[in-house]
């Protein structure tokens, strides 16, 4: 980590190597996207039959519909939960629940999917309860229902974490004022909470919509057939199974158009969204004291907590019970090692690229080149616009013929998962660098603190934690990513994610349960270790 900062330090001296590298990397990313599309279009040029427009329309329609419903349900639930949590700042399990809300960020998607299956699937908890009570009912998880449940499970915590800071930002005086004026809960909702939501919801809903729109693992595992296929899954199928490059390219271009539109909308919504110190105590609210409000809030919180914890509990219980039926220790061990190796490599790559791009962006901001800064930020967020499947296939195509695909598989996975994790790295590092610059630039210039001295005494102590967070986050994202390994993986390179996907696909749920549990434990331990070891202790 030291070398990484050293090259980035001499900010005072002209265009440093780090800044130039940052620009170079951003250019490479942008060029990569263009090349990929050129390759795809060229490769698909000799197709004879007209493109299957009906199929494309159906896929697009379903993708939009499920994303819309997922967003709607996640937001409705999040509004109820956040309001209840904000009103009951003294709720006993509040801290624990808020910690839990940070889990889906770290938990590999496929693990969460297994949890959902373990509760709502054919032999899940719900079916068992129905059976025990004597109701003749079979849950039908696969299809739209499963996708919606999984999406709400993943996005509700995110929405809560995005909304709660907004509630916390209401000054304590406002709640005192409301109490002094005798506002009831309906008045408070109309006069304080609705305006608050109206500010926050557009941005949050677009983010969740985009996440659900580009969903891969959820739709692939829970879609359960061609009727519930999303764009991303259709791209994967076209490229990996049908090798229909033209169709893949068309779908990919559609996706870029929608993602770019979405990103533009997020940018227009214009609010810097705060994800973070949600555990901070929200100001005391007098309207939470009434017994009716307490009853409503406590029911909402308990119901939401059950919805969010049950899949995790089911995962742990089934995982422990399934250890006997687990895959052979040897294959589990090798898959775990592959997971760790690919995760760490992907994370390091993403963090290094991210740090350089963020430094270059900071430099551009400093020189007042806003457009340059925006382009740099945008290039780093390539993974948000361009489907990883498309980038992966581009790497695939570019490499075909000249290189043995089998041998570059690992590099492909690492690169692809790094591109996917990069937006999250930038999300952590950009604001941290901005704050550090605003706080220290003038003082350092005044004291003549530059180069190695500045890095040692000023930059590393203050940036160490965000760098650690970025590395930990990108490593677990790379480790849990299904897209890259599904595209590049082969029988000799199986990580836990791919192993679990295979077991889920074959309905070997007991084995899947223990794989999922091991993957989750590994991801959490991984995250925690990196944050502690690299991040050091908290600075005050």
């Amino acid at each position, binding site marked *: 980590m030291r070398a990484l900062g050293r090259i980035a330090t001499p900010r005072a001296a002209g265009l440093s190597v780090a800044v130039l590298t940052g620009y170079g990397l951003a250019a490479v990313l942008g060029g990569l996207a263009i090349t990929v599309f050129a390759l795809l279009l060229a490769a698909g040029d000799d197709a004879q039959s007209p493109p299957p427009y009906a199929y494309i329309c159906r896929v697009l329609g379903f993708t939009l519909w499920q994303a819309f419903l997922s967003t709607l349900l996640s937001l409705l639930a999040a509004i109820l939960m956040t309001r209840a949590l904000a009103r009951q700042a003294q709720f006993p399990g509040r801290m624990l629940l808020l910690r839990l809300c940070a889990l889906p960020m770290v938990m590999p998607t496929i693990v969460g999917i297994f949890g959902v299956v373990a509760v709502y699937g054919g032999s899940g908890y719900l079916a068992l309860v129905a059976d025990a009570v004597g109701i003749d009912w079979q849950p039908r998880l696969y299809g739209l229902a499963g996708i919606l449940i999984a999406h709400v499970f993943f996005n509700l915590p995110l929405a809560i974490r995005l909304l709660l800071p907004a509630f916390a930002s209401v*000054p304590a*005086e*406002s709640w*005192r*004022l409301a*109490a002094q*004026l*005798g506002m009831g809960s309906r*008045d408070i909702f109309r*006069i304080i909470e609705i305006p608050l939501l109206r500010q926050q919801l557009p941005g949050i809903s677009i983010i969740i919509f985009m996440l659900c729109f580009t969903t891969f693992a959820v739709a692939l595992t829970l879609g359960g057939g061609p009727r519930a296929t999303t764009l991303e899954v259709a791209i994967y199928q076209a490229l990996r199974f049908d090798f229909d490059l033209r169709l893949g390219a068309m779908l990919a271009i559609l996706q870029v158009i929608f993602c770019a539109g979405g990103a533009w909308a997020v940018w227009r919504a214009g609010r810097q969204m705060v994800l973070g110190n949600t555990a901070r105590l929200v100001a005391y609210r007098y309207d939470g004291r009434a017994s009716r409000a307490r009853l409503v809030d406590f029911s909402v919180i308990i119901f939401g907590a059950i919805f969010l914890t049950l899949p995790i509990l089911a995962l742990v219980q089934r995982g422990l019970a399934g250890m006997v039926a687990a895959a052979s220790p040897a294959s589990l061990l090798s898959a775990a090692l592959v997971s760790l190796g690919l995760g760490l490599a992907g994370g390091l790559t993403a963090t290094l690229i991210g740090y350089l791009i963020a430094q270059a962006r900071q430099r551009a901001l400093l020189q007042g080149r806003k457009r340059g800064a925006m382009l740099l930020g945008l290039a780093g967020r390539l993974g948000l616009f361009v489907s990883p499947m498309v980038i992966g296939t581009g790497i695939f195509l570019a490499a075909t013929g000249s290189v043995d695909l089998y041998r570059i598989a690992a590099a492909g996975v690492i690169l692809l998962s790094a591109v996917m994790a990069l937006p999250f790295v930038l999300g952590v590092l950009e604001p941290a660098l901005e704050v550090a610059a605003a706080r220290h630039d003038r003082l350092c210039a005044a004291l003549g603190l530059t180069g190695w001295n500045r890095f040692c005494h000023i930059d590393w102590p203050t940036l160490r934690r965000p760098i650690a967070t970025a590395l930990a986050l990108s490593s677990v994202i790379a480790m849990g990513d299904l897209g890259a390994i599904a595209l590049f993986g082969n029988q000799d390179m199986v990580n836990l994610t791919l192993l679990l996907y295979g077991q889920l696909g074959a309905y070997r749920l007991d084995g899947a349960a223990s794989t999922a549990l091991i993957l989750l434990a590994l991801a959490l331990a991984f995250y925690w270790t990196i944050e502690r070891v690299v991040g050091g202790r908290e600075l005050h």
Partner: protein
Amino acid sequence: MSYIDIAGLQFTYEDLVMRFDLTVDEGEVMAIIGPSGAGKSTLLALIGGFEAAQAGSIAVGGEDITDLAPDARPVTTLFQDHNLFAHLSVAQNVGLGLHPGLRLSAEDRVAVAWALEQVGLTGFEDRLPGQLSGGERQRVAIARCILRKRPVLMLDEAFAALGPALRREMLQLVLSLKVRNNLTVLMVTHDPADAAFAADHTSFIADGQVVMSGDTATVLASTHPAIRDYLGT
């Protein structure tokens, strides 16, 4: 029997155990001064009903209000910041004092206009708080306080963010409104000059206790070591 009677009012914040005894006469202006962290604002929060006392009682006009909800108390508080909702117009912010759900009749609108006139902001109805100066925002909040028709007005460092001349002007306004509306005023301030200018009586609070309460001139001239330390004279 005094108009406001606070007896053995107890509250614990972190390590500080506070216990207040204080009496205020009807129609007077009482300044509350003391070092920061002494419990001045906590005392107002207890009277306003924003904090619940652990023991003791508060009576206003002979009625015990210790257990009443904030809106049921015969008091209204003006805070230093955030007295207005930024997204509501001046008229709506003032109108909240009449109806907390903002269902205002034509009659109410007339009352709002009257209250704005009282604070010298005639015609400001449709402006938003963001378009006003700090002093004007506090005037709007005062207009709402008047409309609420509570006999006790509490200023919690309400003018601390304003410059000396403007602060004097606002205090002048409060004094004239006090006379017109027959109010009793409690004001927390960190500036003894405010007390000397506006208050009949002054209470000096330190470490969660009322150390001395009486004639403003007497308190400010007292030889009590805590008061001398605070005033630095």
